[in-house]
């Protein structure tokens, strides 16, 4: 590669790829849940990105491109046990979420997530998810990706992202309610009046 071309490549890589270092680091950390592994993953991702920079199309979304490399590297190099479970229909999952909320409310856990610091338990619940569910939560909930961007990164239809995400959230909520019960967390919020109020429902 000629000097001007090499300089342009390095300039473009610095400006377009390295600017996403904080986001990529956060994404790697949310995948590995371990700083040492995240360090390796970040380095490996950027080295692969630099080596294949010619395949990046200028003007396209560089962050998503880096996330794809990071995710593929994570799957390949860490040889994680890949427990793959498919989710049901997203609509059914959404209705199941409503049922779970109703039972949480009856058990006195209607304000569980706003009343207690559950960070550690959330980390464990996330870790326990099947890999493809965890990826959906990691991208959308922890790394602010839209359903469409997550679908592009995971190379699946948007509907698949929705169903995996909704199922993952329900599994995490079930785990967190179990945790609250086991830890004896007691909500100070009043339980619902079974007769309900006078407000509208339909």
């Amino acid at each position, binding site marked *: 590669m000629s000097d001007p071309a*090499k*300089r342009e490549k*390095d*300039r473009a*890589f*610095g400006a377009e790829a390295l600017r996403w*270092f*904080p986001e990529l*680091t*956060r994404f790697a*950390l*949310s995948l590995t*849940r371990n*700083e040492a592994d*995240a*360090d390796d993953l*970040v*380095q490996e991702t*950027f*080295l692969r990105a*630099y*080596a294949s920079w010619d395949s990046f199309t200028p003007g396209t979304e560089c962050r998503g491109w880096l996330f794809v490399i990071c995710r593929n590297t994570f799957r390949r190099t860490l040889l994680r046990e890949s427990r793959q479970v498919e989710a049901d229909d997203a*609509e059914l999952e*959404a*209705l199941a*979420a*409503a049922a779970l*909320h109703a039972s949480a*409310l009856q058990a006195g856990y*209607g*304000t*569980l*997530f*706003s009343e207690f*610091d*559950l*960070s*550690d338990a*959330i*980390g464990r619940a996330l870790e326990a998810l099947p890999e493809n569910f965890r990826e959906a*939560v990691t991208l*959308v*909930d*922890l790394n602010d990706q*839209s*359903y469409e961007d997550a679908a592009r990164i995971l190379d699946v239809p948007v509907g698949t992202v*929705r169903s995996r*995400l*909704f199922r993952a*959230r329900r599994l*995490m*909520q079930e785990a967190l309610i179990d945790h609250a019960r086991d830890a004896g967390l007691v909500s100070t919020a009043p339980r*619902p009046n079974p007769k*309900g*109020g*006078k*407000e*509208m*429902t*339909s």
Partner: protein
Amino acid sequence: MRIFNRLFRRAPMIDCDTVMRQLWDYLDGELTPERSEAIRRHVEMCSRCRPHSEFERAFLVAVKRSRREHSQPERLRGVLVEALAEQGFAPQ
């Protein structure tokens, strides 16, 4: 009713079942502005959907709050730039 809504620029009223089906999409900001507004209006007034929405929103906030940040990002950035330099990268 549609004419009424159009005349008064109001989002059409929707029922609890529709809200439950689309609550995650609503909380994730994935709906059109019109649909989102219709759900917001319903949730605001509905004694069944409002606690459900608050429960799910609090969950999303708690998950985001659990997000871990790297403790030494500058050290990692330095190591990364060194590794890239070994591959020929020269910051411009």
